[in-house]
C-alpha cells in the first residue's frame, strides 16, 4: 500500500482535499474524412470517494468517449480533446506528459469494459494478464505477482481461483470473464473505477450478481464509481447520482431519487417514461420520437429540440441553454425546467 501513496505524491500539484475527480467543460471531437464529429460538447461532473455516479444516455451520446477521454485512451487520431479539464485531486490529467499519465491509469483510475471476451487478450492466460499489472507497475517477481493474482480472483469470487489462473479468457463463462475484468481493474487499488456498460453483454441474473459484486467492492474500498449505462433499471439500484447525457452534453445532473421522482429535463423525463412498467400492461409504450442527432450536424440551440414536446423558438436558436441550477447539486440544461419539474 505504501508504494501506491508514494506514486500519488509524485504527481505535481496533488491536493488531497480537492475533489476526487472533476470533469469541467470537456470537449472531444473526431476528425474523420466525413467531417468533424463532435462527440462530447461540454461534459461536467464531479465524483467523491465512495460515490456512484451513473452516466446515462442513448448509444452515441458520448458516454464512452467521455470515459475514454478521462482514461486518456482515446484513439488519437481521429479523436481529439479540444477543451476542458479532467482533474484528479486537483491535478489536470490532460496536461500531464504521457509517461506520468500512464502511471495514473490502473493505479488511480481504472476501467472495465463492456464485452470482456473481446476486452481480454485471447492468447494470454488470465493469470498472465493479471500478473502483468503487478510486474509492470510494481516491479514484482513472477511468483509474487501470481500469488497476488490468485488473491484477486478470490476477491471477485471466482471459484477455484488457483486452478483457473492458467486458463484462457475463452474458457470462462461470460459472468466469470467480467469478474476477471473487475479483478484486473481493481488490482492496483484505484480510487476511481469507470465501468463502461459492464453488464450489457450478460444475461439478467448474471447482471445482478456483477452489479452486486461491484457495489460490494466499492464499499470495501471507498472507491468512486462512474457507471456508464443505458439501462435505467441498473441505475436505480446502485447509483447515488445521475448525469444524463444527450448529444455530448450533460443535460441533467441530479440525485437518483430526485431524477426518478421529478426529472427536470424533457429528455430525462422521456427516458423515464419509456421504461416498460408492470402497471402499464396492455398500454402503448412511450417512445422518444425521432433519432438522436448525427454528431456531425448537431441542431442549433438545444440539441434535443427536434424531439422535444416543450420546444419553443428560443430552444431552436443558439446559444444552447445554459446549465440552470434547479436545486443545490442539481442542474438542468432546459429553458423550461420549471415546467418540466412542475408537472
Amino acid at each position: 500500500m505504501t508504494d501506491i501513496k508514494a506514486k500519488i505524491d509524485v504527481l505535481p500539484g496533488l491536493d488531497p482535499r480537492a475533489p476526487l475527480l472533476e470533469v469541467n467543460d470537456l470537449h472531444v471531437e473526431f476528425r474523420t474524412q466525413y467531417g468533424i464529429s463532435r462527440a462530447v460538447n461540454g461534459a461536467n461532473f464531479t465524483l467523491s470517494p465512495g460515490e456512484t455516479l451513473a452516466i446515462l444516455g442513448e448509444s452515441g451520446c458520448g458516454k464512452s468517449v467521455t470515459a475514454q477521454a478521462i482514461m486518456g485512451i482515446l484513439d488519437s487520431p481521429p479523436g481529439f480533446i479540444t477543451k476542458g479539464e479532467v482533474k484528479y485531486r486537483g491535478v489536470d490529467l490532460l496536461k500531464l506528459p504521457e509517461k506520468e499519465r500512464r502511471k495514473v491509469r490502473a493505479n488511480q483510475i481504472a476501467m472495465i469494459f463492456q464485452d470482456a471476451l473481446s476486452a481480454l487478450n485471447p492468447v494470454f492466460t488470465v493469470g498472465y494478464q493479471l500478473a502483468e499489472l503487478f510486474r509492470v507497475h510494481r516491479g514484482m517477481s513472477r511468483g509474487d505477482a501470481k500469488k497476488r493474482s490468485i488473491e484477486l480472483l478470490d476477491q471477485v469470487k471466482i471459484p477455484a481461483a488457483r486452478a483457473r489462473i492458467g486458463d484462457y479468457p475463452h474458457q470462462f463463462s461470460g459472468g466469470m470473464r467480467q469478474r476477471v475484468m473487475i479483478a484486473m481493474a481493481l488490482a492496483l487499488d484505484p480510487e476511481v473505477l469507470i465501468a463502461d456498460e459492464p453488464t450489457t453483454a450478460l444475461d439478467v441474473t448474471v447482471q445482478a450478481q456483477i452489479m452486486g459484486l461491484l457495489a460490494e467492492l466499492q464499499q470495501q474500498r471507498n472507491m468512486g464509481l462512474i457507471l456508464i449505462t443505458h439501462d435505467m433499471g441498473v441505475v436505480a439500484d446502485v447509483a447515488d447520482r445521475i448525469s444524463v447525457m444527450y448529444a455530448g452534453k450533460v443535460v441533467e445532473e441530479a440525485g437518483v431519487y430526485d431524477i426518478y421522482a421529478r426529472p427536470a429535463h424533457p429528455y430525462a423525463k422521456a427516458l423515464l417514461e419509456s421504461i416498460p412498467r408492470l402497471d402499464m400492461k396492455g398500454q402503448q409504450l412511450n417512445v422518444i420520437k425521432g433519432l438522436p442527432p448525427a454528431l456531425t450536424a448537431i441542431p442549433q440551440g438545444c440539441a434535443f429540440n427536434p424531439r422535444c414536446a416543450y420546444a419553443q423558438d428560443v430552444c431552436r436558436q443558439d446559444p444552447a441553454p445554459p446549465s440552470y441550477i434547479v436545486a443545490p447539486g442539481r442542474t438542468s440544461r432546459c429553458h423550461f425546467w420549471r415546467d418540466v419539474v412542475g408537472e
Partner: protein
Amino acid sequence: MFRYIVRRLLQMVLTFFGATFFVYALMFANQDDPIQALAGERPITESVRQALTERYHLDDPFLLQYWYYMKGMLTGDFGTSLTGRKISDMMEVAWPVTIKLGLIAIVIAAAVAVTSGVIAGIRRGSIFDNVTLVITLIILSLPIVVLAPLAQLIFGIKLGWFPPTAGATPTFWALLLPALVLGSLVIATELRVTRSSVAENLRSDYVRTARAKGLSRKRVIGVHVLRNSLIPVVTLIGVDIGGLMSGAIVTERIFNVPGVGFNLFRGIRTEDGPLVVGFVSILVIVFLVVNLLVDLLYAALDPRIRYE
C-alpha cells in the same frame, strides 16, 4: 491432440502415394525414348538398348513399374539415375545445399517481412507504408524466371557484389543472392499479411484494455499486438515452404546451385524418371511434415484452437 496427429499421419500416407503415383505417371506418359535421352546425340547399339530396357523394366506394364519403384524406395533404395549414379548418393549431396538455401531464404524473408509489416501496420498511410506497398507490388509482379536472371545480371555480373553462380560446394556468401531471389517469392505476401494483421489487432478491444492498464506503447505492441498478429503469419510461412521448393527449381538452375531443384530440373529435361520421382517423393514428405508441424504450431500459438 494425439488422435489428431494419428489421423493426420494416416492422411499423409494416402497423400504420399497419391502424389508419387501422379508424378510417376506423368514421367511415364512423358517418356519419349529415355535411352536415347540418356545417350544424347550418340547412336545406340541394339544390344545396349536391350540391356538397358531390361535393367530399368522399361517393357513392363506401368503399374508393375510403379510397384518395383515403390518397393525399392520403401526399403531405402531409390534406384539409380539414368546417368548411372545412385540417387541416394545424389540426394546426400543435394539436400543439405537446398536446406541451407531454403533456410537462408525463409529467415531473411520472414525477418524483413515481419519487421516491415509491423511498422507498416502501425503507420498505415505513411510514406514507409506506401513505399513498401509499391516495392511489394513490383516484386509480386515479377516472375522468378525474370527476377533470378535479372538479379544475377545486376548484382552478380554488373556490380559484382555476389558470385554470379554458386558452384559445386557453395559458401554462405554464394548462396545469399539465390536465397534473396528465392525469398522474394514469399516476402511480399508475408509482409502484406503481417501489415493487415497488425492493423486489425491494433483496433481491437484488448488493445484498449492494455492501454487502460497503463502499459507502455512498446509493451502493448511488442507483447499484446505482436503475439496475436503473428499467428496468421506463421501459418503462411509454413505454406510458403512449398512455394520455395518450386521456386528452388528455377533459382538453383539459374545460379548453378547443386541442390534438389537443380537435379530436378536436369531430371525433367533428360526424362530421368527415377531421379525425378525420387526427389519429388522426398519433397512431398518434407512438405507434408512441415504442414503438420505448422498446424500443430498454430494450436500452440492460438489457445482457442484445439484439435480433436
